[in-house]
């Protein structure tokens, strides 16, 4: 088929997707070069949610940055705080009490579940299905209520601190957590019937947005995006931290690397998180929840690195200390930025509707990208 110059001008379009588009979840702005319904090129425009967290870290004492960590990735905030707390504990050589370690894992895994549930609902909303988000929020609300009782906050949990957690919890809420596990396990059948076996959903996601393992590695993509491509990379398994090595859980993997694989990896991960929480509740030790920590934290001059597995992948904090009570440099590595950076290569030649499902399948939290 030959296209005349006149027709070419008609088909060729420059489209702004976002920063206000519902499928960009916040303020992501994609400049698309379109040819009819086909995407020729993507240029993500970042920075709308930029808050300069790294500069803030350089202006306040080490402990004060705990106010920032939950606000970087608000959908899964506890792993970020856990990462920063563990970094300080590694720098100061502090042993965290056993009960605090378990409470940290219970809350982090609950947070992973709330984050994945939010993603499932929002992803299906992007694909045009309104019903699933109502089910997801019903379940998510139960977990958020538990987190609110344990941590005191519903979204930006100020729970982790250097040396342990801010407060102990009571048996009533732990019983409620067990009830949640039972309830949630039954709910997966509903999700399978409603979403996983839905022919429209499968058609919109199968063989769409295929990420090869090599491509994911070259871009530094991690988390469910990398595991959906079949690479068994989970920091909780390969470099266990905070006591994860004492729990039994599997790392769910995809095979094809398409949107459907990323969906099923996240859904299975929620089941694994429930297993971890159940084991942690079964063997929850007593004792203190906070180690003795110096009032002013002054790590020895040097650099410190700590990595955890957030809901979206590799969360790494890297700090340089000059020996004073204020960090000299703090680098926050967010998983989303690396995951999004492969989108321009991935989506060339794709249909616009497939771009929306690929974008959704990456599970982006924009403030984490912009920081």
């Amino acid at each position: 088929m030959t296209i005349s110059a006149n027709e070419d001008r008609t088909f060729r379009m420059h489209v702004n997707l976002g920063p206000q588009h519902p499928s960009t979840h916040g303020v992501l702005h994609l400049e698309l070069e379109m040819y009819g319904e086909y995407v020729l090129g993507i240029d993500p425009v970042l920075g709308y949610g930029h808050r300069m967290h790294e500069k803030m870290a350089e202006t306040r004492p080490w402990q004060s940055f705990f106010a920032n960590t939950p606000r970087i990735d608000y959908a899964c905030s506890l792993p970020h705080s856990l990462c920063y707390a563990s970094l300080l504990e590694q720098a100061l050589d502090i042993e965290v009490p056993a009960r605090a370690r378990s409470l940290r894992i219970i809350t982090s895994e609950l947070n992973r579940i709330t984050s994945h549930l939010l993603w499932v609902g929002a992803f299906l909303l992007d694909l045009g299905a309104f019903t699933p988000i109502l089910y997801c929020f019903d379940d998510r609300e139960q977990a958020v209520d538990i987190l609110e009782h344990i941590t005191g906050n519903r979204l930006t949990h100020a729970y982790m601190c250097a040396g342990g957690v801010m407060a102990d919890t009571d048996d009533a809420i732990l019983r409620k957590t067990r009830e949640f596990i039972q309830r949630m396990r039954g709910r997966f059948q509903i999700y399978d019937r409603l979403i996983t076996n839905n022919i429209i959903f499968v058609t919109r996601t199968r063989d769409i947005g295929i990420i090869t393992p090599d491509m994911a590695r070259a871009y530094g993509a991690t988390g469910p995006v990398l595991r959906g491509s079949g690479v068994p990379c989970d920091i909780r398994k390969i470099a266990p931290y905070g006591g994860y090595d004492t729990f039994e859980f599997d790392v769910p993997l995809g095979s094809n690397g398409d949107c459907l694989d990323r969906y099923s990896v996240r859904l299975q991960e929620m089941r694994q998180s429930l297993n971890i929480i159940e084991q942690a509740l079964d063997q929850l030790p007593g004792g203190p929840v906070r180690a003795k920590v110096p009032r002013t934290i002054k790590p020895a001059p040097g650099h410190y690195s700590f990595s955890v597995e957030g809901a979206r992948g590799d969360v790494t904090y890297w700090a340089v200390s000059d020996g004073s009570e204020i960090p000299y440099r703090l680098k926050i590595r967010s998983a989303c930025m690396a995951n999004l950076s492969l989108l321009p290569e991935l989506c060339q030649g794709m249909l616009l509707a497939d771009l929306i499902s690929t974008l959704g399948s990456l599970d982006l939290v924009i403030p984490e990208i912009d920081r």
Partner: protein
Amino acid sequence: MSALPDELLKKLQACDAHIKTTSPQQGSLLHVRVTRTALKQAATVLRNAGLYPVFMTAVHTDPHVALVYQFAASDRPLRVLLATTADKGGHAPSLTPLFPGMQWHEREARDMFGIIFEGHPDMRPLILCDEDRDLHPLLKDPKHLKTLEQLKGADLEITGGEAS
């Protein structure tokens, strides 16, 4: 697989690198210091070993801006911290041709520290807006700027012919 293949160490040593191995709580952390000219060679070794890029950033010190790259293995507890320096004019070679994932990290480092990466395909601002392209907010005020001597434990100093 052992946590630290000797082969990888040998290949890195061939890049004239200063290597320090530490074992914090999470497996091995390999601290590799190379000169600017050997940076690409060392990064190629890491790419061929199947490591993925974790982040790239800089630290403003007196007299250089130190550049720090972290890589991680996806199958064993191994992380590599590759450190070098930018020259006085803030120039450094780009690793984007080796790791496409470095592109955004390097653009961010240009925003925050004003580093110009040679060989980078696209040096537009990433996080900051166009008006703030020369703001470089993470450069230190002179009164807060520390020398490499004061940050000794961080092992960021690079010795070698063209380190300055």
